[in-house]
């Protein structure tokens, strides 16, 4: 068995054992999707709430997997000396990154299938033409949030990474346009929010996947900037032990 496959198998086995991570990556997006699609508690720009909430939860799913799960997993790997120990094996950094990437992509695919399936059951019918832009956005979002997650994991103790990533997740859930559209936020908060990757990612997915939508240029600029800057910062600052 190759080193890469051995590492992926271990990562998958460990990930499947982390119940609380499964809750963050599937439970919360599913809860948000069904609750806010069925109960109109907040104003959304679409006639049927699911048309806004479904693509927004896809963005949320990326934040949970790329930043929260990856960050916490890597943070504890680092704290337990797992990364240091792997450094003395032939695995190598390249294959380690490839294995982590595989884990993130596989998790996101499962999230995508489940969330799109449930959203379809709730009556979501997104325009097919919008998918390429939405998937491009989700890819850029994955890079941006994985960068943030790894930056935290590579510089802070495991428990602090856990607290900080969950905290950011909650703040982005509330201010990133997932539940409440950014336009509905107070002016200054909306401005700050547009500079952060979550609101940009939500703008890309919701506007791509709604009939007659158009993605604001600011969203692509913000998202691309984070997708480049965050992984670079992580690579620069990451400490293995």
């Amino acid at each position, binding site marked *: *068995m*190759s*080193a890469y*496959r*051995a*590492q992926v*198998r*271990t990562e998958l*086995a*460990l990930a499947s*054992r*982390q119940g609380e991570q499964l809750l963050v990556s599937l439970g919360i997006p599913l809860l948000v999707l069904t609750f806010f699609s069925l109960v109109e508690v907040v104003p959304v720009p679409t006639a049927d709430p699911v048309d806004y909430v479904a693509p927004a939860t896809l963005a949320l799913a990326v934040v949970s997997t790329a930043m929260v799960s990856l960050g916490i997993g890597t943070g*504890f*790997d680092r704290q*337990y*000396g*797992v990364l*240091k*120990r792997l*450094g*003395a*094996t*032939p*695995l*190598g950094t390249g294959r380690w990154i490839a294995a982590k990437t595989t884990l993130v992509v596989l998790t996101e695919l499962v999230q995508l299938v489940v969330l799109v399936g449930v959203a379809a059951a709730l009556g979501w019918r997104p325009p097919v033409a919008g998918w390429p832009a939405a998937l491009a956005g989700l890819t850029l979002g994955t890079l941006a949030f994985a960068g943030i997650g790894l930056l935290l994991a590579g510089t802070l103790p495991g428990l602090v990474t856990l607290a900080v990533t969950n905290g950011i997740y909650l703040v982005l859930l509330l201010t990133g346009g997932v539940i409440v559209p950014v336009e509905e936020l107070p002016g200054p908060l909306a401005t700050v929010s547009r500079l952060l990757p979550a609101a940009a990612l939500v703008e890309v997915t919701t506007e791509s996947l709604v009939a007659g939508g158009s993605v604001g240029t600011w969203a692509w600029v913000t998202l691309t900037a984070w997708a480049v800057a965050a992984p670079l910062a992580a690579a620069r600052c990451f400490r293995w*032990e």
Partner: protein
Amino acid sequence: MPTSTGPVEVIEVEDLVVRYGDLVAVDGVSFTARAGEVTVVLGPNGAGKTSTVEHLEGYRPAAAGRARVLGLDPQRDHHQLVRRVGVMLQEGGIQPAIRPREVLRQYAGFFPDPLDVDELLDSVGLTERAGTTVRRLSGGERQRLSLALALIGRPEVVVLDEPTAGIDLEGRERIRSILEGLRTSGTGVLVTTHDLDEAERFADHVVVIDRGRVVAAGSLADLTSERSTTLGFRSHDPVDVETLGRAMAADARSTGNGAYEVDLPAEPQHIARLSTWLAEQGVAATEIRAGGSRLEDVYRDLVTGAERRDEA
């Protein structure tokens, strides 16, 4: 293993210096370790043992001096060495949520010709615990798992940092027998410990270090052979070693911490003469003994010195 071409040096360290900022952890250490031998780096906590082995493992750069493992540079040739060197870190390195069999299979996947996972579990005595998460293993079981991970890739050199720390008697015995097997198979083994008994049990060759420097080195036989050539005693009262030397007609010296020695075999007539002289001088000796091994003397003084520094 000594062959017709003589023993092969698998680790060579020359004037190695390792620094952390202004702190000099390793201050000019030199030693060699050979294939088919167990070399023990012995020293009190904080002596620089871990910094030395972590340089050999490629984790720490050298500020000066050089080291070679299998003739290669630990940092520059790291990617080649990781295939040929088995490492056991002082602590950690394993996910608490993983199980021994899983982590051994994972590591087996990293090497072209790994040992059989089940046989290895058996040899470290973890067969019955193979499916228990690491979190639930005892400290000693984790140490044995960590040792197994060091061995899975059939390394030519094994570097073990405090392998018996926190391990029970049975675990120690297993580790000793595994080291014995490695020695027989011609593997070069470098072990650090702060435990003198451990060093005497495992070692072919001992390197004693303190405060980043080598203070004694040699084969275990060399370091323990001077057993009866000196006569030692301890006293809280001051002793004039010159007078003592004249009285005993032999060289006498203070070895620090209230310990003295006289270059005479520990024979009854010498012991009697020493006791009489001490009594005449009004010096209360707390202990009169045959010299003991040099290793023991050197090491006991180091440890008491280190403890005193810790207290200060």
